[in-house]
């Protein structure tokens, strides 16, 4: 097993190099550079002269061909230096990302855990009551939720809960007076701010996960060993939870591995609407501004997590299914 782990980590390394190489090349060759829009506001009197433009290009390494710049970036990476943001006034990239990780995790991790907590019982319940009116109604309601895009629902919720009723804050992650709150006060403040974004991030995926579990369970409960268990007189709940569910776990584990990257790629749209200071909006902004160091930093973080997620899923297969082994 250890052998396998080491092998996987090494391969992951190579994959990371490949991914960063491809993204670097792609982004560098798209039209537009970080210097295109900065001074180019609509005021014709504020324009940078060609000589200054050339000097700036030299400073940011934009005059070199992209593969050379990539090599330099890798070299810096080896010394744990992710570089400095061009569009954000030379702030270190690590700092920029670090500022936002907390916010993204608060949103995404909570939402992910909530989704699984809700959809596993729902999925099991629909399996048991499959075909009944209650189950059909629930499924229809879940489909309705799925069909409503998050940016519309977000606006509805904002108007209703924040403006008309005033129950929840409108935007942001913390209130203006956050610094002066007690520890408990701070937790409550973040909780209130996170309610609407988390709800919007979660509701759409409920339908998908519930259906997913339901469909896998349907296949499992028709197996012979389930018939045997029932014939033996095992109570129905135990049949489902103990015998059937375990065998539906493999696809579920795959799904967990797939959703880990979604943790950080974040909800670009929702972050923008709620002014949530997460990594998704940083990514979007940095792409529009062609802020190469930040784009590469985020891609690196994102890729590492994706690869970790797949590794985790693969390791969990061995745990969940005794027939799979990695020796």
């Amino acid at each position, binding site marked *: 097993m250890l052998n396998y782990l080491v092998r996987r980590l090494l*391969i992951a390394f*190579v*994959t*990371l190099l*490949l*991914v960063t190489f*491809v*993204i670097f090349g*792609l*982004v560098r*060759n*798209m*039209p*537009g550079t970080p210097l295109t829009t900065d001074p180019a506001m609509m005021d014709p009197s504020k324009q940078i002269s060609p000589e200054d433009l050339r000097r700036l290009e030299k400073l940011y390494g934009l005059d070199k061909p992209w593969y050379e710049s990539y090599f330099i970036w890798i070299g810096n990476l080896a010394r744990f230096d992710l570089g400095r943001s061009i569009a954000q006034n030379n702030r270190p990239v690590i700092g920029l990302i670090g500022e936002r990780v907390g916010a993204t995790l608060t949103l995404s991790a909570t939402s992910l855990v909530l989704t699984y907590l809700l959809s596993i019982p729902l999925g099991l319940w629909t399996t048991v009551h499959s075909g009944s009116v209650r189950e059909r109604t629930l499924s*229809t309601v879940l*489909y*309705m939720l*799925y*069909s*409503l*895009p998050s*940016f*519309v629902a977000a*606006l509805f919720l904002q*108007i209703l809960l924040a403006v008309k009723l005033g129950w929840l804050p409108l935007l942001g992650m913390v209130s203006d007076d956050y610094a002066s709150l007690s520890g408990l006060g701070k937790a409550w403040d973040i909780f209130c701010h996170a309610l609407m974004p988390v709800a919007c991030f979660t509701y759409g995926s409920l*339908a*998908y996960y519930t*259906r*997913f579990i339901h*469909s*896998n369970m*349907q*296949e499992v409960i*028709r*197996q012979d060993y389930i018939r045997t268990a029932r014939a033996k007189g095992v109570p129905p709940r135990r049949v489902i939870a103990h015998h059937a569910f375990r065998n539906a776990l*493999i*696809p579920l*584990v*795959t*799904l967990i591995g*797939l959703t880990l*990257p979604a943790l950080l*790629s974040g909800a*670009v*749209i929702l972050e923008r609407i709620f002014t949530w200071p997460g990594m998704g909006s940083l*990514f*979007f902004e940095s*792409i529009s501004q062609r802020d190469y160091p930040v*784009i590469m930093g985020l*891609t690196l973080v*994102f*890729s590492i997590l*994706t*690869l970790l997620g*797949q590794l985790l*899923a693969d390791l969990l*297969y061995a745990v969940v*299914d005794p*027939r*799979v082994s990695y020796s």
Partner: protein
Amino acid sequence: MDTDRTTIKDSPSRGFWAEAWLRFRQRKMAMMALYYIGFLCLIALLSPAIAGTKPIVCRYKGTLYFPAMGYFNRRWEKPVFQRDRFYRIYPTNLQKNDPNSWAVWPLVYQDPYRRVRDGEWDDRPGNPTGTDGQPSRRNLLGTNQQGFDVFAQMVHGTRIALTVGFVSMGIAATIGVFVGSLAGYLGGWTDVLLSRLIELVMCIPALVLILALIAIIDEVTTWHLMAIIGCTSWTGIARLTRAEFMKLKQLEFVAAAQAMGASHWRIMFRHILRNALAPILVPISFGIAAAILIESGLSFLGFGAPPPNPSWGTLLSSGRATIEQTWWLIVFPGAAIFLTVLAYNLIGEGLQEATDPRLRQAGQ
């Protein structure tokens, strides 16, 4: 002697898919969903006849023309109307230039690509704009802020709604199933390499690819965007297929097939795949419907098909700016999307049950 012969006729097996279709037909909900999709296809085909500002057929200066075909392809709207300075307004100009002309008009005189102006049709006022476009007698489902009729947009948008899902999911499912099954079944170095390929594609953010595409290609259409979505979302299906194949290849029927000398391809795609359908049907059926929502999200972020794009998703995201007044821009496309999601999922459910061999045993 003849009496020794058995008189039971050999009925050849109908085949897997024919059997599955028979079972599918027995599920009422799934058939209704199929009929709904069929209905949408019909609407898509007949869209210029249902809502449009060009006559379906007209006789002008002695010749028969079909100007409504111009909605499908610009060239099919004949240049004679151009030469005679119609400026695309048919009702008044047909009469003016040739009093003997006649025309068969679409059911609803509205256009998905522009606002109908005052006096185009029988002294009717033009479409209202801004937030004044509530559903009314003339605009059955209301108008958007620029005055384009919602009913016409939804009818013409059906074409897009039907096909985006199939394009993106078609690509994703084909690549995903292919790669996943090879990786899961063959194992070893193939698995290692293919899994790395899956990880590589997973790590590349779709947003970057879409932006790169838009920047490079001159005429970006919805198909390009959906192709990109398809090419980046096959990884989930691949992983699920791979896991399923890894599990199933241990079973006895595979060993039996191998003993009988079946080739790898035959085992994979004729034997194992049918049993591995369950986990991947859900992502596929959701994915087809999700394509509409993805298109809507893209147009919210600012990348979408070249305007004017009468798709349900664009209608939905345009309603956001005036959400408190223009409820019709959210409700109608939202309802259509909901019904489509429901339909595709019911079909997926039905397909799963129809192809599950264990149901046959249970006397279904």
